[in-house]
């Protein structure tokens, strides 16, 4: 038990970078603003979401209260939402923490039992998940507790239930992952698995969205009120995944019945955790150690014979461009964050179109076909093109993604200007894919004029260039190079968020100009000309700033 606690402490320390923060605060003292900014941004983001979520929950509670029954539904929705979220995302986190984290090689060699490693990793993930699960549950707990004038026992049981909510879904995810790893050696093709699972995740998300849209469209009559919708949700999903209902009844029922549900929830959670540790002790290492060396497969090349095929000389710019491309495509988390947005947007558009009744699609097509509406269709299409091209973190993490290999960029005899140019071209190519997909949809579905389409594409490319330059400037100013896991380079990199904000601001300015000109009833081409001028006016100084900054930053960033 002592070892387990020690491991939990160690894992939490590494996970939240507590020692790193301590070092920064006490020794380095130069990057104090960084963690503060992260905390502030996170607090603002979570705070805003929490605010709107709480209002929604309060509204629901108030409605049920007026009806005089069913107030506990807000608790059930919160627990159910949190548990489903954890069940789904837990699989990724468990897989990554149990099998793909770098410290495993070192932990396995220590005289520690498998269940201790497993248990400490599990608890660490659980603490991590609280960051998402608690904001989902706390508002309902408070609104219900205060609204119903609940007593001390409610609060005690509430805190325990909320803290234990992640146990069951994460334990189920763990069982699935451990079983999977025991029988299939997926470690050999880890990258493929991660990409496949990420896409499956995205499509499941979209599928659920699609399913609900269809259901809402098809069964409007059954859902006259939000009350019925929520009751349906609890009835159907709750039956298949009862722990959330137990937790709800533990808090909403009275006397012994409540205690019974509470004990049931706590007992099942604890039992599952215990069984997980027991199973882990038996089979965890078998899955973990299988195929450790499997990836060291070599593909022998015949360099003497096929040297020309394998050794083509490229210009430094091309070499740098292809380096960016290969590293993006071959690192799953980079690829997902780089390309998923571009792929998902058209997919979502098509899915939404499929869900709509046929007549409404016809309406859109005939609206687009009306010559009076071409300006709206053109500007809408342009907005979508720029949006599709900016839905990625390719340029806003272009320098950060180099991480500890940035030393290579510093020692090679290629000017920073050229190196950043390769990143700019790389970002532009990816943006261009997004622009092109929207362009094709416009031409094929909306029958948009093929004469005007190139104008839109040129304007979209210019817009994308502005965003890429802004993104690169953001990442150059403060790249996150100190990461050990590629996830950190994109997921916990604030530059991605700042890049999106910059893109939104730019699109906001363009939209204001375009909408004002439309309202003034100015000719379509004058609007495009104005946008062209705006882009050009931003691009020239933007480019000069970027090249100047790249020279300075490449020199000043120390490795």
């Amino acid at each position, binding site marked *: 038990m002592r070892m387990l606690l020690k491991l939990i402490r160690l894992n939490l320390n590494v996970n939240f970078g507590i020692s790193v923060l301590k070092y920064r605060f006490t*020794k*380095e*003292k*130069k990057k104090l603003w960084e963690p503060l900014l992260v905390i502030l941004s996170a607090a603002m983001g979570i705070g805003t979401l929490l605010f709107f979520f709480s209002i929604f929950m309060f509204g629901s509670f108030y409605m049920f209260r007026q009806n005089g029954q069913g107030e506990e539904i807000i608790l059930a929705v919160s627990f159910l939402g949190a548990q489903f979220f954890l069940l789904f995302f837990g699989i990724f986190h468990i897989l990554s923490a149990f099998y793909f984290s770098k410290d495993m090689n070192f932990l396995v060699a220590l005289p520690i039992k498998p269940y201790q490693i497993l248990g400490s990793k599990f608890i660490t993930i659980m603490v991590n998940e609280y960051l998402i699960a608690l904001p989902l549950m706390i508002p309902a707990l408070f609104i219900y507790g205060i609204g119903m004038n609940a007593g001390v026992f409610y609060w005690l049981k509430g805190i325990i239930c909320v803290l234990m909510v992640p146990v069951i879904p994460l334990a189920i995810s763990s069982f699935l992952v451990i079983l999977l790893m025991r029988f299939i050696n997926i470690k050999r093709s880890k990258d493929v698995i991660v990409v496949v699972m990420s896409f499956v995740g995205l499509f499941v998300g979209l599928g659920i969205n699609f399913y609900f849209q269809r259901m809402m469209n098809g069964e409007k009559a059954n859902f006259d009120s939000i009350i019925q919708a929520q009751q349906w949700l609890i009835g159907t999903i709750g039956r298949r995944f009862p722990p959330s209902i137990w937790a709800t009844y533990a808090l909403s029922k009275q006397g012994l019945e409540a205690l019974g549900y509470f004990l049931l929830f706590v007992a099942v959670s604890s039992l599952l955790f215990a069984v997980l540790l027991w199973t882990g002790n038996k089979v965890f290492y078998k899955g973990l150690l299988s195929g450790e060396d499997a*990836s*060291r*497969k*070599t*593909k*022998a*090349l015949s*360099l*003497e014979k096929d*040297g*020309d095929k*394998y*050794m*083509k*000389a*490229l*210009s*430094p710019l*091309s*070499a*740098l461009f*292809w*380096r960016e491309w*290969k*590293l993006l495509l*071959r*690192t799953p988390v980079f690829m997902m964050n780089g390309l998923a947005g571009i792929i998902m947007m058209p997919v979502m558009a098509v899915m939404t179109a499929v869900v709509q009744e046929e007549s409404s699609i016809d309406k859109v097509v005939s609206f687009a076909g009306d010559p009076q509406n071409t300006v709206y269709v053109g500007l809408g299409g342009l907005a979508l093109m720029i949006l599709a091209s900016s839905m990625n973190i390719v340029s806003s993490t272009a320098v950060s993604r180099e*991480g*500890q*290999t940035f*030393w*290579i960029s*510093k*020692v*090679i*005899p*290629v*000017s920073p200007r050229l190196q950043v140019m390769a990143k700019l071209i790389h970002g532009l190519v990816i943006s261009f894919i997004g622009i092109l997909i929207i362009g094709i949809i416009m031409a094929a579905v909306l029958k948009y004029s093929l004469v005007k389409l190139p104008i839109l594409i040129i304007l979209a490319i210019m817009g994308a260039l502005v965003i890429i330059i802004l993104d690169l400037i953001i990442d150059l100013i403060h790249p996150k190079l100190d990461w050990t896991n590629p996830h950190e380079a994109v997921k916990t990199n604030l530059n991605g968020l700042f890049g999106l904000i910059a893109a939104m601001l730019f699109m906001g300015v363009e939209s204001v100009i375009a909408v004002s000109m439309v309202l003034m009833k100015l000719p379509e081409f004058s609007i495009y000309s104005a946008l062209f001028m705006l882009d050009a006016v931003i691009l020239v100084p933007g480019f000069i700033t970027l090249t100047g900054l790249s020279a300075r930053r490449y*020199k*000043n960033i*120390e*490795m």
Partner: protein
Amino acid sequence: MLQIDNLSKSYSKGNVKAVDGLNLHVKPGEIFGFLGPNGAGKTTTIKMIVGLLNPDSGNIRINSFDNRSQSLDAKRRIGYVPDNPDVYEKLTGLEYLNFMADVYGVDKNERRERIVYFLDMFGLTDAAGSIIKSYSHGMKQKIVLTGALIHNPDLWVLDEPMVGLDPKSAHLLKELMRKHCDKGSAVFFSTHVLEVAERLCDRIGIINKGKLVAIGTLDELKKGDNADTLENIFLELTE
């Protein structure tokens, strides 16, 4: 070949002097061993030579090119191997070597000749098509070494190059260093293995707490210190 004048660098807002007024000159044809205890300033010095760190003061010239004002010219003349082989793990060994050859402007024939030569020498030919992530530490070290030497640089700057190499590869590297210097080029390398320094180096510099405490040939060091082995000299000077 390498001229360092009054080089200084400090960390933690000037509280820790990593390198303090360092002066040294590595001549063409010379293997220069840079020794010192952990944290003495060896890697900091090397990183300043190759441009990874900016000095607080002082100058570094490589083949008479200032490594800051004429950085690209200076970089073209250096082949650098860091102490930790962090490379693009998702590229294959061959892709990495081609990338390095491209950015250093090595033409097709020369690159082919050198890649085949180095891969064969280090026993990496069969692994060249696999991604670097699948390599062992020693294999990574060898691929970085090959990438650093692919443009046949005048000055090799190697930070602990023997770490992780098997005895055969270490032996081959030492031979390569000698051959390279015999052609009039130079090698500047750091090491903790005193026997290697003793046998291989034309001159040795010992750094302690950021200051160069001794420099010269092994004989010169022995005379100056009245000690019989490099180990004793090292221990006396760095106590």
